[in-house]
């Protein structure tokens, strides 16, 4: 009853692009998790793959960015993080 309860969740936004977006059938998902849980980028990837099984059919490497920075290793996510699932890029 001290108002703390309202903060006891973590919100993570997942963004999908190009082939990943097409396979997922949506541009984004929002995940709400209990704050006592430790959620990593790998955990989020598993949740996304479970929610969108068509992703397993993609024969491309998917990179992950957190708040617009590419992450090469698994990291712990925080409330409000924006996590993007990025296929190989090609500008020009």
């Amino acid at each position: 009853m001290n108002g703390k309860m309202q903060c006891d969740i973590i919100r993570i936004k997942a963004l999908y692009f190009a082939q990943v977006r097409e396979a997922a059938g949506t541009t984004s998902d929002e995940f709400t998790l209990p704050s006592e849980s430790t959620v990593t980028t790998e955990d989020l990837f598993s949740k996304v793959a479970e929610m969108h099984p068509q992703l397993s059919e993609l024969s491309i490497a998917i990179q992950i960015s957190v708040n617009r920075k590419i992450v090469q290793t698994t990291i712990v996510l925080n409330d409000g993080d924006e996590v993007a699932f990025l296929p190989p890029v090609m500008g020009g």
Partner: protein
Amino acid sequence: MSKIALKRITDDEIRPDEIIESVKDTGAGAVVLFLGTVRDFGNLGKVVGMYYESYVSMAEECLRGIENEILQRKPIKHATIVHRIGELSLGDISMAVCVSAPHRKEAFEACEYAVEKIKSSIPIWKKEKLTNGKESWVRGHNLS
């Protein structure tokens, strides 16, 4: 830095005159402008158009990063990079890189450097639209 506030990632047609204006400088004896345009053939044959998609906020940060990197290669005066997204037709300008410098050599080099970086280090994806009605994402690179 570009002198005019242009959007780096845009849905709008790219206007070369605006881009050139953004790098003008009385100390520059050279302005190099590169335009990427949609051509009528690709990896899988004849192409009728191209679709570009981007993670806009990240791509804008990356493009500004490349501009700043170029500006540190003295004596570059100004640099502007703009990339278009959405549905493009044959001949449409998909991207523009414009650099001003006192002399042509450094302007050419900086422009080419930026173009190569854009190909492989910006979250942009493109899909070829083929004459047979099929569509195909162009194979790309991992971001570093």
